[in-house]
C-alpha cells in the first residue's frame, strides 16, 4: 500500500508536516504521527456529511443544480450587491485567498478572515506595540522557560508541546519529556512505553496551587532544565502537565500582566494580591522569567477574548518586550485554524492590512470595529455574503448570524456545515491539503506546502478554481452591464 510521507496536517496552526498517510483505493486508511484531530480529519473528511453537488435554494429548500448554474447565480448575487461581505479564508490555501481578495476588489466588498474573532485583537495590539517573536525551532533549540497563558495546547494544538516546546529536543535545550520517560522506563518494558506515557499524561499529579480562595505562597519549582508554566482561569489539561500552574481570576489577566511588568523591573506593588494571586507568589514567577536564558510566552484566546481583549495582548507584548532588557524572551499567539496566519499574510501583502479590508471605495481600507465582518453584520449594513471554508453561523453571536442569513448567502465548503444549511447557493469544494495542494503558513509565519494526497470526488473542485470561475463570471456580468 502506498504511504505518503511528509504530509502537512490541515487542522490547526501548528501545521505538523510529518504526517504519514496510507492510501488504499484512493482513500486514506491509516494516519501515522497525527493527533486525534488530525486522524479525525484525514479519516473522516469524506464522511456522510460531504456535499457532492452544488445546490441552490428554491422555495425555501436546497435543491441540486449544476456547477455552472451555481457559479452564475453566485456571481449575480455578488455583482449586484452594494456592500457584500466575503468571509472565511483561514481553512483554505493562500492561492485561494489570493483569488478571494481579487474578487473582493472586483465586487467592492468587505473581505475578512476568521482572525477577526480569534487573534484579531492580538494583531491590533501588535500594531501598537510590535512583537518580539521567532520561529518555533528557536524555541525548540533554546527555550528554557515556556509559558502558556490563556491557551490550552493539549486540546487546541495537541502536538505543540512535543514538537516545538517543552518536550522537544533542541541543540541547546534538552526535552523535558525525557525525564518523564526515564522514570517510566525503570518501571515498564519498552513495549509498554507508549501506553505508560499516556497514563502518565493523564494521571500525573501536577503541583497545582490550591484554589484562589485559599492561596498560599508556594515554594517555586527548583527543577533543572526546561520549565513549563501554565496561566489560565481553569485548570486545563495543559495545566496538569505543567511544572507550575497559576490560576487567574476570570477577566483579571490585564491586572496580572501589568503587575508582572512592574515586578520584572523590580518595582514594588502596593496591593497584596493581583487577580486573586498573592504578590509573593507572582514575585517568584517574575524571578523565573527574568533569570531564564530564553523564555517563550504563548498566548491563546483566553487572553484575546476575556475582558480587556486587545489590551490584554498589549500588556503581554509589553511584558515580553520589557523582559528583553533582562534576558531573551519571545511571545507568540497560538493560532487556531491551519491557515489563519496565511490569510493574514496574503491579505497584508496584497492590501497592506491583515484582515477586515473594505474595498467599497475601490481601494483597501482597514479599521476593525468598522470594516470587520461582525460589526458590519451587527449594524445590518451588508446586503450579500460569500463564505469560504468557514462556518460563521456556528461561530458568530446570534445577532450577527441573523443578518448574515437574512441576505443572499453563498457558501463554498466541502461539508454541510451549519452555515451551508442556511445557504442560498452552496458550492461543494475539495479539501485543501487532502484533495488539493496549496500553501499554508504556520503560526510562526513559516510557509509549508499542502499536499494533494487523493483525488476529490468527481465534479468537485478546489476553492481556488471555484473562486476563479466566479470572478470570471462577475467580470463578464459587469462588462455586459457597462456595455448596456
Amino acid at each position, binding site marked *: 500500500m502506498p504511504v505518503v510521507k511528509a504530509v502537512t496536517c490541515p487542522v490547526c496552526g501548528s501545521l505538523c508536516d510529518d504526517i504519514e498517510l496510507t492510501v488504499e483505493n484512493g482513500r486514506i486508511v491509516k494516519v501515522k504521527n497525527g493527533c486525534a*484531530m488530525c486522524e479525525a480529519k484525514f479519516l473522516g473528511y469524506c464522511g456522510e456529511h460531504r456535499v457532492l453537488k452544488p445546490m441552490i435554494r428554491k422555495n425555501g429548500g436546497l435543491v441540486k443544480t449544476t456547477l455552472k448554474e451555481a457559479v452564475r447565480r453566485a456571481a449575480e448575487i455578488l455583482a449586484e450587491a452594494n456592500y457584500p461581505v466575503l468571509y472565511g479564508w483561514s481553512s483554505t490555501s493562500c492561492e485561494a485567498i489570493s483569488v478571494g481578495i481579487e474578487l473582493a476588489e472586483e465586487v467592492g466588498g468587505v473581505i475578512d478572515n476568521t482572525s477577526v*474573532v480569534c487573534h484579531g485583537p492580538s494583531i491590533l495590539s501588535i500594531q501598537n506595540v510590535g512583537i518580539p517573536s521567532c520561529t518555533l525551532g528557536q524555541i525548540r533549540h533554546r527555550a528554557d522557560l515556556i509559558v502558556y497563558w490563556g491557551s490550552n495546547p493539549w486540546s487546541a494544538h495537541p502536538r505543540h508541546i512535543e514538537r516545538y516546546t517543552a518536550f522537544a529536543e533542541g541543540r541547546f535545550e534538552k526535552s523535558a519529556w525525557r525525564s518523564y520517560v526515564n522514570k517510566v522506563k525503570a518501571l515498564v518494558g519498552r513495549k509498554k512505553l507508549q501506553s505508560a506515557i499516556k497514563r502518565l499524561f493523564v494521571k500525573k499529579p501536577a503541583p497545582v496551587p490550591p484554589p484562589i480562595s485559599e492561596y498560599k505562597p508556594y515554594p517555586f519549582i527548583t527543577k533543572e532544565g526546561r520549565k513549563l508554566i501554565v496561566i489560565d482561569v481553569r485548570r486545563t489539561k495543559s495545566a496538569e502537565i505543567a511544572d507550575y500552574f497559576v490560576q487567574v481570576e476570570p477577566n483579571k489577566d490585564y491586572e496580572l500582566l501589568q503587575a508582572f511588568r512592574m515586578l520584572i523591573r523590580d518595582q514594588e506593588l502596593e496591593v497584596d494580591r493581583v487577580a486573586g494571586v498573592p504578590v509573593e507568589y507572582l514575585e517568584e514567577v517574575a524571578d523565573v522569567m527574568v533569570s531564564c536564558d530564553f523564555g517563550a510566552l504563548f498566548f491563546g484566546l483566553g487572553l484575546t477574548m476575556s475582558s480587556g481583549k486587545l489590551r490584554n495582548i498589549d500588556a503581554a507584548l509589553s511584558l515580553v518586550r520589557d523582559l528583553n532588557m533582562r534576558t531573551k524572551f519571545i511571545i507568540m499567539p497560538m493560532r487556531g485554524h491551519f491557515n489563519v496566519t496565511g490569510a493574514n499574510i496574503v491579505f497584508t501583502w496584497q492590501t497592506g492590512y491583515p484582515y477586515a479590508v473594505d474595498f467599497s471605495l475601490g481601494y483597501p481600507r482597514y479599521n476593525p470595529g468598522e470594516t*470587520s465582518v461582525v*460589526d458590519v453584520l451587527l449594524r445590518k449594513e451588508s446586503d450579500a455574503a460569500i463564505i469560504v471554508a468557514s462556518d460563521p453561523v456556528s461561530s458568530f453571536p446570534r445577532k450577527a448570524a441573523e443578518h448574515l442569513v437574512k441576505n443572499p448567502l453563498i457558501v463554498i465548503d466541502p461539508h454541510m456545515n*451549519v452555515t451551508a444549511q442556511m445557504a442560498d447557493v452552496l458550492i461543494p469544494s475539495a479539501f485543501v491539503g487532502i484533495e488539493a495542494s496549496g500553501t499554508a503558513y504556520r503560526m510562526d509565519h513559516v510557509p509549508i506546502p499542502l499536499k494533494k494526497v487523493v483525488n476529490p470526488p468527481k465534479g468537485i473542485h478546489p476553492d481556488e478554481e471555484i473562486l476563479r470561475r466566479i470572478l470570471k463570471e462577475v467580470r463578464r456580468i459587469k462588462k455586459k452591464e457597462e456595455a448596456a
Partner: protein
Amino acid sequence: MEEKPKLKVTLLTGRTIEQGVGKEWGKSSKEYVESVSVCYMDPEDMKRLGVKDGTNIQVSTAFGSVVVKAVKSLRAPHPGVVFIPYGPWANVVVDPETHSIGMPSFKGIPATVEPAPDKPVLGLKELLKTVFRKG
C-alpha cells in the same frame, strides 16, 4: 411556590478537544452536536443547583437563553465559572458587543444557570429553525 434554584456565574466559551475532533467529523455529526451542546460545571456548583451529570440546564445571559446538558467538569475547582464549547448553542448566549475591535465577547459573560430537566436540548436543525427561521 418553591423558588427554583438559580446560580449566578461567569460564562466562558472555548475550544475542547472533543469539539475539535467532532468538528473534523462534520458539523452535522452526532460527535459534533454532542460535544458542543453541553455546559461544563464545577461539581460543587452542580450540588448547589441540585443537578447531576447529564441533567438539562438553562443558561441565560442578557443576550439569550439556551438549554444544554450539564457535565461535571474534570478541571475543577472553578466555582462560579461555567464553560460551553464553541458552537451554535454557545452563540445564543454570548455577548455580541465588539467594543469596536471586531470581536464579540465570547468569554467572561455574566450568566445565570438553572435546572431545566423538563426542557429538551434542541437538536441542530431545530435550534437553527428556532433561531433563524431558515434552513
